[in-house]
């Protein structure tokens, strides 16, 4: 009986130590992950992106935290925008059947003959990259994708990065959270 009591006491002591250890360890891991999350965020390298469409389908959020953004200083303000119009568009107009974007998230605004400005409506954009592909193929590549940090929940493992075929998504410093073409250039 004495041995059993000793074993019970020993078991309780060990359990206590283990619980304390796990609690401290857990707090440490939590603190470390929060510190990491605060300093590093996920972002897309626009020069690596191959417009596969997975940003729209693989993000844990719906619609995705990935949105198209527009580098206006690179844009040609073309009437015949390859990112806005379908390749076989009937005419260069805002008619839905002529638009490439599946959600009509790009607004085409007349500036002066023959120039037009293209503005992304972030609420409508689903990050599918269809316009990015059109702009990259036939235009200057001024339309490109970025992870928007006021929407992104900064998962420990980004579900898009996990399946990105061009390895374009990586962690970057939160102080340099965006890699916008024009102001941010492709590293040599």
């Amino acid at each position: 009986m004495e041995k059993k009591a000793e074993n019970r006491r020993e078991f309780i002591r060990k359990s206590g130590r283990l619980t304390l250890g796990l609690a401290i360890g857990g707090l440490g891991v939590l603190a470390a992950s929060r510190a990491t999350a605060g300093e590093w965020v996920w972002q897309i390298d626009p020069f690596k992106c191959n417009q596969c469409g997975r940003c729209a389908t693989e993000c844990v959020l719906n619609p995705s935290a990935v949105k198209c953004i527009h580098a206006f200083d690179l844009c040609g303000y073309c009437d015949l925008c390859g990112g806005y119009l379908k390749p076989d568009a009937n005419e260069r107009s805002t008619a839905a059947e002529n638009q490439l974007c599946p959600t009509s998230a790009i607004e085409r605004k007349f500036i002066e003959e023959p120039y037009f400005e293209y503005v992304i409506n972030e609420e409508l954009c689903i990050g599918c990259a269809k316009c990015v592909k059109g702009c990259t193929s036939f235009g200057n590549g001024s339309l490109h994708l970025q992870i928007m940090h006021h929407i992104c929940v900064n998962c420990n493992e980004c579900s898009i990065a996990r399946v990105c075929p061009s390895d374009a998504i990586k962690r970057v410093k939160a102080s340099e959270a965006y890699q916008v073409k024009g102001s941010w250039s492709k590293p040599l």
Partner: protein
Amino acid sequence: MKNKGIVIFLILLTIVVVVIIVGDFTSTRPDKQGENPYEFSVDEYTKVDPDLIQYKETKNFRLVFENPEGIAYYKQKLYVLGDQRLQVISNSGNLLKEIELNDFPTSIAVDSTYIIIGFNNYISTYSINGELIKKWDSLGENSVITSLAVWNNELFIADAGLRKVLRYTMDGQKISDFEGKHEEAALHGFIVPSGYFDLAFNTYGDLWVVNPGNHSLENYSLDGSMREFWQASSVQIDGFSGCCNPAQFTFLPDGSFVTSEKGLVRIKIYKPSGEFKCVVAAPEKFTDEGYAPEVVSDENGNIYAVDFNKKMIRLFEPV
């Protein structure tokens, strides 16, 4: 019942194998992507009726440049730019001469007396043997020289930065410039959304300039008055699509246009009237979404194309 354990083991093994196969089949790992529901595809426009292709590739020369930049043809010789070098190559592909340059070139023109090389915003002239004659002053900080053409001892420069054609004497004195406005009241002339802005003279001395934002080729008098133009805007084989096409062009000896496009990369021929004639090289010949090849032609109507993606000169001869 002796084999009961083995049977259970085999059933479990089968289930595991099936689960692995199904799991792999439905996996979304990076190298195993399913259909992209948002795919932007121009595949149907890459298919070309074989009857329209009236040239075949007969030869190609691999270039040693990291970044090929431009090409000119003059009397059985190819003048090829890349990195910080000019190479003179015979039309059979033998290197005849190499000249080191002090900067990264963008464009070239050659006549009986001069080799003229454009850099980002200035020009240098060389003798036909490759000795530097003169380095011109900068044309301006906003200049982006994209194409050169010589006629009657005058140099015509396509400047994508200024969106103008500049006319100079061969010793660097500016004569005039024009911006392609068809009338004084027009707001804009040349629409140049990117660094693709080409010009060339045909054998009759007519100056033609691409207006890439209009998908048009425009003929100007030497003082900059528009004389005529033709336009072909379509993603189909007989037209130009995207923002900056045709990105490059040259002339055949009979005055036909040889055009080269980016995006949907293809080389085609249009009659002197602007009517589509035939295809030199279909998109399947080139890297998807590659750069527009720069094209020159020889006295026999053969076409040399610089394939910037494959880093080679490709020769296409009429079938």
